[in-house]
């Protein structure tokens, strides 16, 4: 347990009667590039904000680097860089002063790292923070999260507002950091992002983790996307989901025995058949849907 970068056991947060997260179990090993996937309101931000001590858990335990999230907030925050999903700064301050303030609050001189990051992200340090676009404010947040070289990066929907070039540069930086042993924990809606960069991922739905594995294994569930031109009734096979039919093209996700599929199709007039692995997005969409928890 102590060896985990992030560890949560039965972590629960209720806002009054409203569910934030409910009995969440999570383990992130040091050095992981970890994706945290879930729809709006599933509890991604609640999980992150609880782990960082912004809100206190209603029940359960949480540890970061083996330290209790309630008792050792300060020691945890020393080692963490956090990028909130909505970054706000103090009006009237220049980017340069904002970054300096963040470093000073950590009692660290981060000027070299700060300069390098601003250069790479093309962030003008002489602008006032309130004049910045959403994307540029995000960059300020990124520099604040990275400039003190933390051991754990917690990023809440980090790429919103960044243009594709900046997203690429940002992920390059994250990968470089990850290669030096930094643990990266990022929440996202964007499945291609997770599939491309993360080694592991957890899927959260209605406050609970419903799947947690390596991204490769999550994507290889045995489920297949079957598409062909022909005629098939949806009830002809069990274990069919996501059925669509248009212009004679039938498409569905199949999770049953392959032989059964072949036998059924053999009796039909089938053209242009493809059987492919669904991408992570399709799998996750099914995790999101109610009852779709055996994809």
């Amino acid at each position, binding site marked *: 347990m102590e060896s985990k970068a992030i560890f949560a056991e039965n972590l629960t947060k209720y*806002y009054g009667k409203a569910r934030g997260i409910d009995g969440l179990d999570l383990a992130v090993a040091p050095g992981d590039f970890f994706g945290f996937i879930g729809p709006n309101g599933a509890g991604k931000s609640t999980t992150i*904000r609880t782990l*960082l*001590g*912004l*809100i*206190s858990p209603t029940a359960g335990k949480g540890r970061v680097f083996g330290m209790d999230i309630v008792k050792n*907030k*300060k*020691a945890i*925050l*020393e080692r*963490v860089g*956090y990028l*909130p999903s*909505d*970054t*706000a*700064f*103090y*009006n*009237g301050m220049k980017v340069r002063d904002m970054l300096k*303030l*963040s470093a*000073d*609050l*950590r*009692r660290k001189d981060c000027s070299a790292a700060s300069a390098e990051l601003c250069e790479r992200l093309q962030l003008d340090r002489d602008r006032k923070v309130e004049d910045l676009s959403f994307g540029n404010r995000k960059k300020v947040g990124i520099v*604040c999260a990275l400039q003190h070289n933390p051991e754990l990066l917690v990023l809440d929907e980090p790429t919103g507002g960044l243009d594709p070039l900046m997203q690429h540069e940002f992920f390059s930086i994250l990968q470089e950091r990850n290669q030096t042993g930094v643990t990266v924990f990022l929440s996202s809606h964007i499945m291609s992002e997770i599939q491309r960069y993360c080694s592991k991922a957890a899927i959260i739905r209605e406050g609970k983790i419903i799947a947690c594995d390596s991204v490769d294994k999550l994507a290889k569930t045995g489920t297949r996307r079957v598409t062909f031109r022909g005629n098939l009734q949806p009830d002809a096979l069990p274990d069919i989901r996501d059925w669509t039919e248009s212009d004679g093209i039938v498409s569905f996700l199949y999770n049953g025995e392959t032989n059964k599929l072949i036998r059924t199709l053999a009796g039909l007039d089938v053209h242009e058949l493809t059987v492919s692995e669904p991408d992570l997005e399709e799998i996750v969409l099914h995790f999101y849907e109610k009852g779709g928890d055996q994809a």
Partner: protein
Amino acid sequence: MTLIRHELKQAWKALLIWTLSIGAFIVICLFMYPEMKSQMNSISSIFSSMGMFSSAFGLDTLDFGSLKGFYGIECGNILGIGGALFAALIGIAALANEEKNGTAEFLLTHPLRRTEIITAKLISVLIQTLILNVAVWLMAVGSIAVIGEPVPWKEITLLHTAYFLLQVELACVCFGISAFLWKGGIGIGLGLAIALYFMNIIGNLTSKADVLKYITPFGYADGSEIFNKGALDGCKLLIGLAFSLIGVALAYWKYNKKDIR
């Protein structure tokens, strides 16, 4: 230290405007005093015989024709209300504004204990209050010297001390309330300051409502009472101190376990 410096940097413009506004009003009034003085003898008796109105503002016990009396009433209304509004505003904004402006997430994910943040913000509020009061006191004393009147050092210093303590109390109480808010509470702060001011006026009007003067900090910052007694009312001050401590204690208690939005 970093945080206190940051807080003061964020606050200095508003502090400057408040200080100059309150100071300027007092200076202007004092510069009108020499001319008014010559006409005062007749007006003064009118002022002091307006019944309820006179007692509400202490006109019955203070001689409006003397500098002390004039200053006690005039300063009472400018520094009294102005300072109270200022103190209430900075107190109520101190903790709540971080969440209102969305900066709480930034600040609270730096390695700082909540207690350190509360303390730094409280100290910043007290420093601002002190700066405003010292500056206004200097402007007042300077103006009295410039218009060639003898400076009533003891009275004026006592009065300004009372106003300073009033503002500290109000700021501390609002600071405590601030810990419970998510959206800023300018209305609450201003409302409280004004309500307490009128509470004192009601207390002045009728002796049946005397108890109000023990609740409101304006009760111990009453020019006529301070000048007549030559001292501040220890009992009222102690009650004020108790309110201040409760406010501060509430802030620490609540903010340390608060869920940040």
